[in-house]
């Protein structure tokens, strides 16, 4: 069939002969001539939580919208649950759930009304009262959307994505603008979905979220895949280096720090805020602090730790995730 022709490599590389949930191959999308997705390829296996990680403007949302069938691709091929998102949109929409980055709900409607409405759209809907319970919205089931707190609004958006008992859920920045409590609840729901075998594709610019939830992470920027792997794999490549974060009250030419023998790289994150990669941390710290003492540099903050995904991202893109 068409799928075999388009994805010969994928068909042979599958584990247990199960089709992947999502296959993206050489995806390109241009907005007014500019490529926001520039030849992206990735595969999401069934039942896993997959995080698309990248800063704002990396092409995450556009990619997700193409996968949902909301936008056509300019080039490349996309298969979602074995379906073409544009040509087989009807069949696909019965099987996916979507959380938009923001909005999507009538301000004058209540959670009860919204969930009941969406339940009518699907062949095998979940029970509305159970979803209200799951999302912690039972108490406000009859409160109009615009009167809900920001966290409650986002939770309703999440519940709406689950009404159809989907096989695949797209979560576009699901916890941005959420209170800590809402974030915990969302993470719980994502874990529950994984336990039920639902595939989850989430976009985020929170490292902690990706590291905690995802089975696989794709780091993208400027519409390109920069790195891919499990959280552990992404960290492994760098695990022999230690990161030192140094904050000084006054800025200092980074070359002076770079001149230290045990310091590999110096990155100035902000004025007086440096991130150093070092080897042999004990010796490097001795060298560093001795130098600071000799030059009478006041020290505001000094932290030593293993590389985090945040550092990996910084290495790959040269910029901070939250820019």
């Amino acid at each position, binding site marked *: 069939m068409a799928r075999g022709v388009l994805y010969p490599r994928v068909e042979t590389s599958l584990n247990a002969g199960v089709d992947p949930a999502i296959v993206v191959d050489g995806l390109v999308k241009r907005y007014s001539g500019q490529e926001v997705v520039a030849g992206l390829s990735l595969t999401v296996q069934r039942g896993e939580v997959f995080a698309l990680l990248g800063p704002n403007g990396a092409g995450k949302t556009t990619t997700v919208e193409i996968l*949902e*069938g*909301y936008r056509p691709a300019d080039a490349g091929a996309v298969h979602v649950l074995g379906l073409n998102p544009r040509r087989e949109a*009807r069949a696909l*929409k*019965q099987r*996916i759930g*979507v959380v*938009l980055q*923001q*909005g*999507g*709900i*009538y*301000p*004058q*409607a209540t959670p009860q*009304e919204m969930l*009941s*409405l*969406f339940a*009518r*759209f*699907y*062949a*095998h809907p979940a029970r509305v009262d159970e979803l209200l319970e799951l999302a912690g919205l039972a108490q406000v089931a009859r409160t109009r959307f615009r009167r809900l707190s920001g966290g409650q609004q986002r939770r309703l958006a999440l519940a*709406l994505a689950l009404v*159809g008992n989907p096989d695949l859920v797209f979560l576009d920045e699901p916890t941005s603008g959420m209170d800590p409590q809402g974030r915990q609840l969302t993470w719980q729901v994502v874990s529950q979905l994984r336990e039920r075998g639902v595939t989850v594709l989430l976009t985020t610019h929170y490292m902690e979220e990706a590291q905690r939830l995802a089975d696989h992470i794709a780091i993208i920027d400027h519409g390109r895949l920069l790195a891919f792997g499990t959280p552990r794999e992404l960290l492994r490549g760098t695990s022999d280096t230690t990161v030192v974060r140094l904050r000084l009250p006054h800025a200092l030419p980074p070359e002076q720090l770079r001149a230290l023998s045990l310091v590999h790289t110096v990155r100035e994150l902000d004025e007086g805020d440096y991130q150093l990669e070092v080897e042999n941390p004990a010796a490097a710290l001795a060298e560093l602090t001795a130098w600071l003492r000799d030059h009478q540099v006041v020290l505001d903050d000094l932290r030593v730790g293993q590389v985090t995904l945040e550092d990996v991202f910084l290495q790959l893109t040269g910029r901070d995730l939250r820019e």
Partner: protein
Amino acid sequence: MTDVHTLPRALTAQVGMELRLTLRRGESLLITLAVPVLLLVFFSSLSIVRFPGSDSSPVGYLLPGMLALAVISNGMVSVGIATAYERYYGVLKLLGSSPLPRAGLIVAKVVSVIVLEVIQLLLLLLVAAVFYGWRPGGSLIEAVVALLVGTASFTGLGLAMAGGIRAEITLAGANGLYLLFLLLGNAVLPLDHLPGVLQAVARVLPATPLTDALRSAMTGGTLASGFGSSIVEEAIWGAVLILLAALTFKWE
């Protein structure tokens, strides 16, 4: 396999939601429901304007104009503004990723407009009959055709505005056009009361053929003539406006 069962269910649920939300918008109800009734009462009770054929009561002349206003306000003002804000709030986008087909959403909007129009027409006819002695006349079929063609035209105009321009501008624009159609649409003021230039403007507006067609249909051609030419003119407007809506409509 599942579409066969879910589509009718999805449509009725969406119509229910559209109606419920419309009834919740007090300011919109004021324009759509109250204004035509108040105008009917006002001009039927006070003889400020001398209406054609109003030997006994001006209601025979006024009522078709008020029915046209009801169609314009439901189709253009109510649907236009609501849809514009639904686009602004991302509602259209989320619905676009749900199994409700895009055409299904439009159908649901049209059905809910027709339901509200029927309620409003009954209210207007009741007021006209009970308080001003209006009695049915003319051709029911012609009147229904005129109402349907008018509904298509003005719902198309509302959707074209909602899909093509910003919500705030749609809000202002729809209300502005409503006032324009009220004054220059041959709904309240007979066109020959207007200065020549305004008459020329009024003749090319999409409201005028609707009021003419309705007036001709409901009076058996005595207060306005040429149902045929008016309805053709209105149908052309309808085709143009629906095409415009289809071309400009954006879901986000």
